[in-house]
């Protein structure tokens, strides 16, 4: 057993995604060996990010500011509010923005349906999406999920949920490398997939 502060650090690191007990130990000892300045910089950036960055209250993208913050895209009134591109994570917004082909707004589900990881619809921003369709006069929803099993499942679920609403539901064209993540698609391919989006028949 290590001294309590060291063990606490290992336990905290071990809670991070993709970090097993072995890696947690390795990172903890790396931090112990760091010059004090470097370690404090890491601690400070965690502190700063938690104090100044939160989720956009509208689309759940990353936003600067407190609880009622809005992201740059939602605040930009040149963006078309009638078209919503629905993605899994904020990193997917970066991928779509890189194409420069999309002038609408986004909605981030903050995950994909995956019972193995304990994620069902109730863990996602589904209710918030439904509220926006009603409240913001949305005419088209573009489902833009990673071409893998969980992304497909989330798209299918939303498509069948939205069927009853007066909104056009489309899905980006296939053609992205299957099994990969959206963020790995190059902007040309992703741009073409957006361009070639088709109505979903759920």
């Amino acid at each position: 057993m290590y001294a309590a502060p060291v063990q606490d650090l290992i336990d905290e690191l071990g809670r991070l995604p993709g970090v097993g007990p072995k890696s947690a130990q390795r990172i903890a000892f790396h931090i112990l060996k760091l010059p004090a300045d470097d370690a404090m910089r890491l601690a400070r950036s965690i502190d700063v990010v938690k104090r100044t960055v939160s989720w956009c209250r509208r689309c759940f993208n990353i936003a600067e500011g407190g609880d009622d913050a809005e992201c740059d895209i939602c605040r930009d009134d040149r963006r078309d509010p009638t078209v919503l591109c629905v993605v899994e994570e904020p990193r997917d917004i970066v991928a779509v923005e890189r194409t420069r082909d999309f002038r609408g707004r986004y909605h981030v589900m903050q995950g994909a349906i995956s019972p193995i990881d304990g994620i069902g619809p109730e863990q996602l921003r589904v209710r918030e999406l439904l509220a926006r369709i009603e409240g913001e006069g949305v005419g088209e929803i573009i489902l833009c999920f990673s071409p893998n099993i969980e992304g497909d499942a989330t798209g299918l679920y939303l498509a069948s949920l939205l069927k009853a609403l007066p909104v056009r539901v489309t899905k980006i064209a296939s053609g992205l490398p299957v099994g990969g993540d959206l963020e790995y698609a190059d902007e040309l391919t992703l741009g073409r997939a957006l361009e070639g989006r088709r109505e979903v028949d759920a």
Partner: protein
Amino acid sequence: MHLDRLWLSDFRSYEAAELVPAPEGLTVVSGANGEGKTNLLEAVAYLASLRSFRGAPGEALIRVGAPHAVVRAEVDRAGRRLLIEAELRPSGRDRVQVNRQALRRTRDLLGSLQVTVFAPDDLTLVKGGPSARRQYLDDLLVALHPRHDATQSEVERVLRQRNALLKQAGGRATPDVVATLDVWDAKLASAGETLVAARAGLTAALSPVAAATYEQVAVSAPKARGAVRLAYQPSWDGPLLEALAAARTDDLRRGVTTVGPHRDELAAWIGELPARTHASQGEQRSLALALRLAGHSVVTGRLETPPVLLLDDVFSELDPDRSAALLAALPAGQALLTTAGGLPPGARPAVTVRVEGGKLLD
């Protein structure tokens, strides 16, 4: 196709080893038990399937104390040369290369090399539970076309998701559970139907070939029982989507998926007898050999080049008559064979190497 050269580094018991098998005919690897003969065949098969044919986990293939293992082979496919390489890492995330180009996804290596493995426990193929027979079909499908690997992993993954959801639901069909089950059912039905159609088509192609290969390897009297016949038996009738809907209440109660490709059976008969339950041990052994030979023949026919034959200590389990029959039935092409004892009469090795203390000796 054939292996021109095989290099191992920190794979199982080998710190470093190089094997140059005969391009045609029999390469015999001899040595006492426990010296690591099978490890050589396991390494070759790993490049073909990215897993151990003995069912060992990936980290067991890395030599104790080594950071990773490397298996590299020079393969000749109808005159086209491929240098293929897999670096096995304890994390399970292998790095693979073809002609020194790293592949983005590990599974893209599949299709570079095909092998047919005869293992000492092949009897379980006939005698054991249905999962061994489904695996037999699935391995052959991947050898026929790597796209089947994607379908198989999709079915597996969707099943894991669906089963996780069924367990979490705890028997209660809330609107969210129903809506998400609908999604998994749709995905399982589409991938499952694709897989099952491929398995059934393969079974139809295998059945007459297995009947012929059984005639070759079956010895003496039992031939009188009649021809070998194979049939694919799905665990449901009609469209899979409807079967899943019909099974839903039951599935929710039990917390598992009760119909689908993971519950199917590849049934085999010798004449009128179900081979699994009614054939003698000798007949079952012959049938296991016949199934391996039939698979090899079907893959050879479609790829227009025979997979590399890997025979792991097979003669130790066979009586002299069956050994001789297998030897006579072995198709042309490259074969790597391990043995702790002698060879059956009539075996003519082109190359012989001896394994001793983790080293290959000429």
